């Protein structure tokens, strides 16, 4: 285990955190808020500790898969520990565990909050609201990917870090050089965020609102800054947000391929399946709420709200225009299923990922075929490409680990004795990085009522969900730390 390199990478990451904290700091200067002081202290602390960490140069620079995973997991934990400081120091969130929950929820682009919705949220200092949204943007594409784009870290180990931080089963590079790949991904990310920001400005949002919404959407996070999330905005703004939530949940490699003019490759099987699922879900839900009596939706309105909710949930953003907790059971069930499916691999969204679901379903179908022809040899193919056994195996293992984490978390949360819908969806909303669940943690509720232990379990779930289980689990294996 190359501890020196781990320390050094953590140091660089903390320095970058200090730079990221400039965003809320500038906000606090613009609005002249006292909370800016706590941001400044946090930035100085992060910068100082980071600087101490990189002072001593490591003798050995090689890192391998093991170090790569540990670095990523530790980075996210340390990042959250320091990122929580502004909330805590300013006294706006008096409990450190709450502040940590909020920050982890931000970086992992979950969007689950312990802050009460309504006016209390709007009373929060603007700089802290900005920091909440900005953590989404930073966490969406990955902090280490960002660090990699700017700093020449040691060669080959980078790939392991990128693998651990990016979403999806089979993370590949789009150009041969890691740094180049990281830069291209961030450029696409920044360009799309800017596009959304401008479109929102056109729709009449203020700069502060548009920036916040764009950051939240880009990371598919879902922290709002208004008491009613997106409900009070006009249809134009809601539709723009719907479209961008979907855009950010598509594999970024597709955009790169589009830029290269390879339309056919860009619309691969995963993207097509994702869009099909979205369309199907929107139709189902809009018909359901339109036809069920007592909701009083016009069809257009039903379509719009269903589209927004579906986009919000499948992209694992978690913005709301309508309290879907009040919708008919069928609609709610569809939304919960969407939470688990999640976005495309290689996007900023969470969930199990469409590509994994595709492989799992095909695997299940082939298994049935094998019952009929026990000696049949068949390989799972996606986009006409036969998948290696290795990939299929890792996806199966992922599902098992996912379910294990899910079940254990659910048991631990149930200790508190809240109803099953609340407990079940609280875990679902965090481990899939969605944000709001159903019941008490629904769009109009929040996570504040859980005790500290449950909150820490959910913090773990959010991290495990964002890093796709294994990098976090590896920290708990004693073999990882053996010399």
């Amino acid at each position: 285990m190359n501890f020196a390199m781990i320390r050094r990478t953590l140091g660089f990451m903390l320095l970058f955190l200090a730079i990221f904290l400039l965003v809320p700091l500038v906000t606090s200067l613009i609005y002249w808020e006292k909370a800016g002081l706590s941001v400044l202290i946090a930035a100085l602390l992060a910068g100082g500790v980071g600087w101490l960490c990189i002072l001593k140069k490591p003798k050995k620079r090689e890192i391998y898969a093991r170090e790569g995973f540990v670095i990523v997991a530790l980075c996210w934990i340390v990042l959250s520990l320091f990122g929580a400081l502004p909330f805590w120091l300013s006294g706006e969130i008096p409990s450190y565990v709450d502040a940590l929950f909020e920050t982890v929820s931000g970086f992992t682009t979950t969007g689950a909050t312990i802050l009460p919705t309504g006016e209390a949220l709007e009373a929060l200092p603007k700089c802290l609201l900005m920091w909440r949204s900005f953590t989404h943007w930073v966490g969406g594409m990955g902090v280490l990917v960002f660090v990699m784009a700017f700093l020449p870290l040691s060669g080959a180990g980078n790939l392991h870090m990128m693998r651990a931080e990016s979403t999806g089963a089979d993370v590949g590079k789009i150009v041969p050089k890691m740094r180049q790949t990281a830069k291209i991904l961030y450029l696409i990310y920044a360009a799309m965020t800017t596009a959304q920001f401008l479109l929102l400005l056109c729709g009449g949002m203020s700069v502060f609102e548009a920036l916040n919404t764009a950051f939240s959407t880009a990371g598919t996070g879902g922290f709002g800054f208004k008491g009613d999330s997106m409900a009070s905005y006009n249809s134009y703004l809601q539709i723009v947000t719907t479209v961008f939530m979907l855009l950010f949940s598509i594999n970024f490699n597709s955009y790169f391929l589009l830029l290269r003019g390879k339309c056919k490759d860009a619309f691969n099987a995963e993207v097509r399946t994702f869009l099909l699922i979205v369309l199907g879900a929107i139709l189902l839900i809009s018909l359901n709420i339109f036809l069920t009596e007592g909701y009083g939706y016009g069809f257009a309105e039903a379509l719009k709200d269903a589209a927004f909710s579906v986009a919000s949930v499948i992209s694992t953003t978690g913005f709301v225009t309508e309290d879907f907790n009040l919708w008919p059971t069928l609609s709610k069930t569809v939304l919960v299923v969407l939470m688990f499916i999640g976005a495309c691999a290689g996007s900023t969204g969470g969930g199990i990922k469409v590509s994994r679901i595709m492989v799992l379903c095909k695997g299940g179908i082939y298994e049935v075929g094998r019952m009929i022809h026990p000696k049949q040899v068949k390989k799972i193919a996606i986009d006409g490409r036969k998948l290696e056994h290795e990939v299929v195996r890792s996806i199966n293992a992922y599902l098992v680990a996912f379910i294990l984490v899910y079940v254990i978390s659910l048991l631990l949360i149930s200790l508190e004795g809240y109803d099953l819908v609340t407990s079940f969806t609280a875990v679902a909303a965090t481990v899939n990085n969605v944000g709001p669940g159903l019941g008490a943690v629904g769009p109009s509720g929040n996570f504040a009522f859980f005790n500290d232990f449950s909150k820490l379990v959910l913090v773990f779930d959010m991290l495990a969900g964002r890093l796709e289980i294994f990098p976090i689990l590896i920290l708990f294996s004693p073999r990882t730390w053996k010399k």
Partner: protein
Amino acid sequence: MKIIIVGCSEVGQTLAAKLNDDGNEVTVIDVQAEKVRAVSSRYDVMGVVGNGATQATLQEAGIENADLFIAVTDSDELNLLCCMIAKKESDCHVIARVVNPAYSEETAYLKERLGLAMVINPDFATAEEIARVLLFPSALKIEPFAKGRVELVSFRLQKDNLLVGLSVKEAMSKLKSKVLICTVERGEEAYIPSGDFVFAEKDVVSIVAPKREAKEFFTKIRYKGHSIKDAIVAGGGAITHYLFEIMERSGIAFKVIEKDEALCEELATRFDKVTVINGHAGDKNLLVEEGVSETGAFVALVKGDEENILFSMFAKEAGAEKTVTKISRIDYDSVLSKLDLDTVVCPKNITSDIILRYVRATGNAMGSNVETLYNIIPDKVEAVEFIVREGSPIVGKPLAELAFQRNVLVASILRGKTVIVPRGQDTIEVGDSVVLVSMGRSLSDITDALKE
């Protein structure tokens, strides 16, 4: 530079690693997914699984933007096919590895008609290196620079050599030779020695010298050398074939031991002067019978590395004066250097050196060009030859005034036909061919050697 390598076997892997270290954008292609995964997770390169001779795979690897295409699979035909298709898809430079003598005799035709930039034959290149060592057996390795006018020679210091116990400064003033000491290897450490470095027995010393001076130098330091009159070669494969071709007029009497009858007949038909023996080189009695104890040189060229090492060690013990051992896996070179094997040749490294040299030379638009590249100590010290072009910032200044990086040494300057062994007051002029030795960094331009 954007480079595509087809074939992830040993040569492909070595190339991917070295080209990536040099800062190129490398994409590797292989049909075997696990090989691609192994390479792309160890180095910062992109991997594509597929047949490198199909247009779809090449497209996926980004052939249209590639600058260089290298096909080094184990099959000659596949390599040539890959190159043909690559050439049709883009106007990149293409390099093919071709081993079969039937094809490599038509190198010129292939280069012209298929538009290949280079046809590389690892076996032939290896045979060339062995030939050089056999002609100058005092050396462990010889590498020609400046079109053969300057040589880089490595040798192991013997017990009663004059140098042992002297410092570099003392040795140079005592010998008054036009020779420059480049590097010294002691155990696993490598040094670019300063004036007060003291030589010890068993050090492997590399010198740069004008061609004739090297032999003189060896007499001066009382190095026990000899010239080779006969040699036994174990294994009759392609390298052996090429070696005999190169050495046909050398006057060395060759004897080859090969167990495959067909190969023996082929060799016997082609080379009248060579004694071809059909037998197993692992048969100790056969080796003794054929006079391994009196032979001038023993060259082990059978397939297995372990066998080659074993044969050479036995030959050395039996009394062969010089042994040459072919090894495919050079990863364990630190262990090998302890075995006293004399010369070790590694086709994989020779191939990648030649291709690297080409890459650095073409990837270089500035004041000078890489002409020759040679790894004195693999992965540690390399010697690079540059031609100095107009506009290079180093022209005309005395060497003592140029701020060179640490562990960089100007080893020789060739101006016209005169070889200068550089001292502080010498200058580098336009058109000179300069050999630089550098430790721990790769140079692709002469300015890389200067402090920033």
